[in-house]
């Protein structure tokens, strides 16, 4: 079953940039890498798929729902997007990881338990009581991944997850990709071809807002899912 089906998708950003995709289909369980240089349209594509920006024209179906100008909350809650660099609100890390759960009306006890478990799965338990604004770039990415994954999204969109990789973030990212691959579909934008070919099952290349000719091809077999740290 297709998680994303887009056709004749057009999104204009200012007078000088337009994203135009004739066709894009993403199947359930895929790990799709969107490759391309800066300004190619990777972030624009991810925000369109993440229902964070309206498109100018074309048709877009996400998780079986035809997307209109104001996508329903229930659909938005089935996917998650991690920005580059990720944005964390002020407060403790564990509360931040639980933020999306609080939006869904879960009790504090449930939120804290699930957030703690997710931090443990990503090897980030030591950060739980830290202030979010005191984290390094890599730690921030790790916490943002935990915050997205705890929601168990059916579609996870990661914008340049390799941009701020340090030791902590690399471990968290690999653990996150391992978790996601088992249960959902992931689309990540990157200009790191090695990373894309290591973790993606398919690579789409963008250049100047369009899919680049023959670059849509199967990548090398995806790296086996790394073992997640146990709590």
């Amino acid at each position, binding site marked *: 079953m297709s998680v994303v089906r887009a056709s004749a998708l057009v999104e204009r950003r200012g007078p000088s940039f337009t994203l135009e995709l004739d066709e894009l289909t993403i199947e359930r369980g895929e790990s799709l890498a969107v490759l391309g240089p800066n300004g190619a349209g990777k972030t624009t594509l991810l925000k369109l798929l993440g229902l964070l920006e309206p498109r100018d024209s074309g048709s877009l179906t996400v998780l079986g729902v035809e997307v209109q100008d104001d996508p329903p909350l229930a659909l938005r809650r089935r996917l998650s*997007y991690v*920005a580059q660099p990720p944005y964390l609100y002020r407060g403790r890390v564990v509360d931040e990881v639980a933020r999306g759960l609080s939006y869904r009306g879960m009790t504090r006890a449930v939120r804290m338990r699930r957030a703690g478990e997710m931090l443990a799965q990503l090897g980030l338990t030591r950060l739980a009581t830290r202030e979010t604004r005191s984290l390094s770039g890599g730690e921030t990415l790790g916490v943002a991944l935990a915050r997205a994954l705890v929601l168990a999204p059916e579609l996870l969109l990661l914008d340049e997850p390799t941009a701020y990789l340090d030791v902590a973030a690399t471990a968290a990212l690999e653990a996150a990709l391992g978790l996601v691959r088992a249960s959902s579909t992931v689309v990540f934008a990157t200009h790191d071809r090695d990373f894309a070919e290591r973790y993606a099952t398919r690579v789409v290349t963008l250049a100047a807002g369009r899919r680049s000719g023959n670059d849509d091809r199967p990548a090398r077999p995806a790296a086996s899912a790394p073992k997640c740290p146990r709590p």
Partner: protein
Amino acid sequence: MTGLVASLARAAALLLSRDPDALAAIGLSFRAALTSTALGTLVGAPLGLAVGVGRFRGRDAVQTVLQSLLALPTVVVGLAIYLLISRRGPLGSLGLLFTPAAIILGQIVLAVPVVAAHTAAAARALDPRARETALALGAGPFRLLATVAGELRVPLCTAVAAAFGRVISEIGVAMILGGNIRGETRTMTTTIALETAKGDFELALALGLVLVSVVLVLNTIALRLQK
């Protein structure tokens, strides 16, 4: 110069002696300003957030109107509301004219654009990822506004301080809608105007000292918050 120093000394002595007229004016001014600022914030903050965070047609026009209302002359607000609540006005039956409630009503009209315009400007200047992240985590409209408001705590406090400063120091609304009735609707600013016209500067200077102190304290708080 000596005369001014002597007048200031007498004004300070008047305050220390708990002059009933001074205390009544100070009390009413603070009650009216606190009430109107609180109610104005209840309206202005969500309005400013909606304008700053929302994506709707005409958003720039609404923000321009809010910015323009910052410079609205207080006497014009007083006049407009006077026409509404005077005996022949559409709200005349409420009997609000020349009451503290009328002053509060006028001051709310002054406070709302101050809070809304400052909040909207701060929300638009906020990192766009703050809104985007809340949406990506599945926030509904109310949680989205609450989350963004949380990130705007400091500018919101500054906006409230600015609104309080605007309403406690205004005179047009208090004079036109309150009527400057001794012991009932006489505020610090209307008392200053009256006493100055009478050539009796002691009470006017005493209340002037209070007003300047309030403005200084508010600006100090706003500056500290912004650091």
